């Protein structure tokens, strides 16, 4: 019976291990974690890879530089919309009106430019303020009156369609001809600057990672072995450089015409991803959002103003929806009475959920929106290259969505079987 005590780390508190183990150990423990089902973004990324392989085999244009650039501009709007929705879903709420909020905000922007000759900055600001105000009203109705967010946002989904119709007239549309706004999806970062940005981002990432690692070591806190940190930096560097390289190729299909460089929408999405990841994981605001989503009563007892968090989340989500509306308008070159309607919202929520965000609150990350948004955009993009009848497209879209989600679900099931 004497061997039992060896297990106890009597010296320190608990069995809490903080020491850095070797790279090999870290890899083994990661493999163990994955075996145990704790896979993070792995399954969703795997789902995306499967899609890339399938579509890549089905049509060899799919993996061309031109199509990759298309994919990025096509995914932009849904990713940004889904990022806002992740916030709402983190609280366990839903925002059915996010799509049309984007449409309404974009209409405001379009009208400010077309009818009132405002500069693009003012117009975009106008759109975002419109979104924020809509979010404010929704948030107040949900948190102060306690009406379920499903009903409030369903009402706004309808009401805002009316507003859009009123703003731009039955069957009408507003042209978005402003160069900067159209440029978000149409223009590209000059090749040189693309490389510079990529290198700078890699350098900053490396610096921050190494610094944080050093602090943890010196304070004796939990940390990964240094080799893992280097591996992470390496992975980020490779991905960024490859993407930059591909997008910096000339991708114009017709000779005599040059299209090269990273579409502006990509740095925009990356900036938003970094911003929201920072907010959610490194600020107390983000922490409070998770807490309210996980257990609102516990959050309240911890002194968190639950109502204020909820209102703010709706404001932020609707502002993101407005931004998404601007990107969509940029891509379409106009805002129409049907902007943001149809299935936009369902797709965006689906993107967040496929990425790994829970509909029941408390679980989700900004990157879920990016991965899930790419999945959704890839389905439309890939199918578009295949040239099938409409009914086949519907059916295949449904089937592929299911496929992408089931990769994720099956892996998570293993985790729950192992009790995590």
């Amino acid at each position: 019976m004497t061997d039992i005590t060896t297990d106890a780390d009597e010296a320190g508190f608990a069995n809490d291990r903080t020491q850095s183990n070797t790279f090999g150990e870290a890899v083994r423990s990661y493999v163990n974690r994955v075996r145990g089902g704790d896979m993070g973004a792995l399954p969703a990324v795997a789902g995306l890879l499967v899609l890339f392989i399938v579509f890549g085999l089905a049509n060899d244009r799919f993996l061309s530089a031109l199509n990759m650039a298309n994919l990025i501009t096509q995914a932009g709007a849904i990713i940004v919309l889904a990022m806002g929705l992740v916030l709402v879903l983190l609280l366990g709420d839903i925002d059915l009106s996010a799509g049309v909020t984007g449409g309404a905000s974009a209409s405001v922007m379009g009208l400010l430019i077309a009818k009132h000759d405002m500069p693009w900055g003012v117009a975009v600001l106008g759109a975002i303020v419109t979104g924020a105000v809509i979010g404010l009203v929704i948030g107040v109705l949900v948190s102060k009156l306690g009406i379920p967010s499903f009903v409030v946002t369903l009402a706004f989904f309808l009401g805002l369609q009316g507003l859009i119709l009123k703003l731009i007239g039955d069957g009408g549309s507003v042209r978005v001809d402003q160069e900067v706004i159209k440029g978000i999806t149409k223009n590209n970062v000059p090749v040189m600057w693309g490389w510079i940005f990529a290198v700078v981002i890699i350098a900053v990432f490396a610096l921050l990672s190494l610094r944080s690692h050093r602090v943890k070591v010196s304070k004796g806190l939990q940390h990964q072995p240094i080799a893992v940190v280097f591996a992470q930096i390496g992975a980020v560097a490779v991905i960024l450089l490859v993407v930059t390289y591909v997008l910096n190729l000339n991708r114009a299909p017709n000779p005599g015409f040059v299209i090269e460089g990273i579409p502006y929408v990509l740095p925009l999405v990356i900036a938003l991803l970094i911003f929201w990841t920072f907010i959610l994981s490194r600020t107390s605001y983000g922490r409070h959002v998770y807490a309210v989503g996980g257990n609102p009563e516990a959050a309240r007892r911890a002194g968190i103003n639950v109502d204020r968090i909820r209102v703010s989340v709706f404001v932020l989500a609707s502002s993101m929806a407005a931004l998404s509306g601007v990107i969509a308008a940029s891509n379409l070159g106009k805002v129409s009475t049907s902007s943001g309607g149809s299935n936009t919202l369902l797709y965006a929520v689906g993107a967040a959920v496929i990425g790994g965000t829970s509909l029941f609150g408390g679980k989700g990350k900004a990157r879920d929106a990016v991965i899930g948004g790419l999945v959704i955009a890839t389905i439309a993009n890939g199918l578009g290259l295949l040239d099938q009848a409409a009914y086949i497209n519907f059916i295949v879209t449904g089937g592929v969505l299911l496929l992408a989600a089931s990769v994720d679900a099956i892996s998570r099931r293993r985790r729950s079987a192992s009790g995590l």
Partner: protein
Amino acid sequence: GGSDSSGGSDGGNGGGDKVEGKIGVILPDTKSSVRWESADKPALEAAFKAAGVKYDVQNAEGDADKMQTIADGMITDGVTVLAIVNLDSDSGAAIEEKAKSQGVKTIDYDRLTLGGSADVYISYDNSKVGALQGEGLEKCLGDKDANIVYLNGSPTDNNATLFSQGAHSILDKNAKYKKVGEQAVPDWDNEQAVTIFEQLYTKADGKIDGVYAANDGLAGAVISILDKNGQAGKVPVTGQDATVEGLQNILKGDQCMTIQKSATGQAKALAETAIAMVKGDKPETTGTVEDETGKREVPAILLDPVSITKDNVKAVIDSGDMKASDLCTGDFAQLCTDAGIS
């Protein structure tokens, strides 16, 4: 599907012995009318196939974003002539601009893209459609006082607005007619149309003498309510698209007229034009149409819509747009025979 003869996407410019290049067509949706999938697509594919040209025909399913995505994909795929049925002018213009910037020629099919850069516009005259509907209703009502209800298409669809304006331009002139209700049906949704019309009917206390319904689907919804109130056949209803449903209702006497915009005819025109353009020839046009937004005259091929009533249902079958066997099912066999259709 019609992908079988598209020759694969790897063909590039090497193999074709007849025509180099490829034609892309993007249809708008599956909801506003069934013609896109059931008439245009087969007709186009048949014409392209016959001409031995590579093609790609897709449907944007009512989603402007999706149309942009498809267009990007087609251009990626080496399409040299792109025909679109825009979902609205501005998104269409964006697509055409992008295409032009990559050296792809464009055609506006069925709907004119205001402010666009299409090389040719091929369509039925849409404002004429509404006018024909108005005239048809006028004929069915005859020369008496009448309360009229307008059931327009989707408020977000610009064509619906044009149809309605066309009808008003005729009916508003007649002093005997009085408008007792007018509603737009969101998304052309037939189910909502039932409720909307039932309420207009109730509001007018049943005193309705004629109904302007923007297309055959909406007309069907209207007839369902008239039938429930014992008024079917007594109150004339207009329609559009010459669908099986509409023609059957006409044969039955429940609907007074519909508009045929022969998809086969229009598709034939598109195919000819596109093939000419792929070959580098200048397409033959019948005139021009003014694009007020773009401030230019667009070369156009304008086809004439045909008004169909009980008397000339047969013309639709004769045009090849519809098979008699599709129309003359079950109880309608007898009515078909009566109308001289076999």
